[in-house]
């Protein structure tokens, strides 16, 4: 199969992720969508790596995973503490500050 198709898939996943961020209310789901975007990036890296024939892309994918994991740690901590305070994980409820 032509590796370019993986790129299209990556783009598709990225867009799905971004759309999810825009339309979902639950902070956890939003965060999952962001993870999806990151993984779409990973797919793109790996694909390009394959196309270019060097390993940089694959290595980067590992880095991305680590970073994503770190983000999960930080992000979940923040989201959970918000949830415990408000008993709601809706990002729309967190709108004290505006204008």
């Amino acid at each position, binding site marked *: 199969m032509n590796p370019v198709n993986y790129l299209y898939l990556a783009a598709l996943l990225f867009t799905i992720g971004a759309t999810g961020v825009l339309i979902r209310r639950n*902070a956890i789901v939003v965060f999952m969508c962001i993870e999806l975007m990151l993984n779409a*990036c990973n797919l*793109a890296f790996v694909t390009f790596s394959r196309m*270019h*024939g060097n390993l940089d892309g694959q290595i980067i994918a590992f880095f991305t995973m680590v970073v994503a994991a770190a983000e999960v740690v930080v992000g979940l901590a923040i989201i959970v503490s918000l949830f415990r*305070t408000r008993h709601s994980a809706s990002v729309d409820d967190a709108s004290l500050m505006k204008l």
Partner: protein
Amino acid sequence: MSTAAVHSLWTTAADPITKIPAPKIEYGQLSPTLIVLGAALVGVLIEAFLPRKSRYYAQVFVSVVALCAAFAAVVGLASDGYGTTKAHIAAMGAIAVDGPSLFLQGTILLAGLVGLFTFAERRLDPAAHGNRVDSFAAQAASVPGSDSEKAAVKAGFTTTEVFPLLLFAIAGMLVFPSANDLLTLFVALEVFSLPLYLMCALARRKRLMSQEAAVKYFLLGAFASAFTLFGIALLYGYAGSVSYARIAQVVDGTITNIDPALANTMGNDALLLLGSALIVMGLLFKVGAVPFHMWTPDVYQGAPTPVTGFMAAATKVAAFGALLRLLYVVLPGMRWDWRPVMWAVAIITMLGGAIVAITQTDIKRLLAYSSIAHAGFILAGVIATSKDGVSSVLFYLAGYSFVTIGAFAVVTLVRDAGGEATHLSKWAGLGRRSPLVAAVFAVFLLAFAGIPLTSGFAGKFAVFKAAADGGAAPLVVVGVISSAIAAFFYIRVIVLMFFSEPKPEGPTVAVPSPLTMAAIAVGVAVTLVLGVAPQYFLDLASQAGVFVR
């Protein structure tokens, strides 16, 4: 892509790799970052092993020493000529040690040090149960208003973890502007962003807002970094490498030996344009440029004020450094593509920030919008695409960061029963109550407004001059107009402080410890010195104005 080529790839990759060369790391040249990172780790260990009572002092001590040492290292490197003649790429191409890196690292370290002083301030709030408290929550995990929180306060818990977090953030920021490949850039971005997200959530007062700020900052920040990462992926696809030098060569078309297998994707301009636009977007998010600015006011307002001050100053320095390097080192070959776009961004940023600020009623939000407008001014210098442009941006950042930290430090002083009194109406008549504090804040505001004899003016002049020299005269005109608009709301605050009658139950001005005083004093001193006698610093910035490739 032909099957033969694919096959050859497979076979190449399948060959066992016999020899992996050990990387050559110039530890000396990376020492500033390493010192800070090391200190951060020490901080973590302190949290783990020292008794609660002594953690604060140990953390402050370690942090101050580390930042001073790192700054000394930067100065040492600069005096060795690493900023000019010996500038080169270190750590196997990952880190550039050159003028702009050293200058910005120095700025970040000093800003971090001054910011640290405000972090360590423990005299503003009245002592709770005999324990001195700082601006951070006693126990971040406890639910606001819950019994566990009360117990934590009573027990005298403090979140001394902020100090290692701060050091991690600083370390990330040190790497960010000197990153010389896109991977390092991304990692550095996350290294300094994640601690900031956390610190935003740690306010002692108004914890709901603090948590909300953290959530917003985190989600939007992660969203933006996803875009950045995708951009990196595309650029990688375009150039076959994430190294700045390599990408620049491909952009310029000066690359010598093209692997025929890459011919298909390499030099695909769509990838280049898409990729660079997305990376730039990620950086513009960090500097708070319109339309990626919307997190700024909410996060600035909700975060603990010392964090806001540090973030507003240091993040901007680091992000602009990275932006400069990206545009000047990686993408100069396509400046005819990005300049018009950046023109538009700069214009709407200057105008948008200034206009929306007019109707703000909260001092922290007001300063947030002001920082947006300033991002616009700095972008004008970035667009100059000249050596003068670089040095003017460096100079502007140096001046701006100290004014910002100083201004937010003053904000921490004005308090009422609910903590900081950030609503503007409460600042009425402050000039009567505490003329000195009001006068100092007025100096900062005037510097923001770019009144002559302050660093704000010198910086603005440098930036606009570079922009005009670079053929962006209309941008200068827009900049001047938005300065005028911006002047309006800075003046409004001054009017409020000096010419309005003080409210009977107005806020009090806390008498800070020498730490905050030092932060404010440094702010005033830098503001005036850079305003009156900027030549030395301009020299410094202009010596530091050359990127290594």
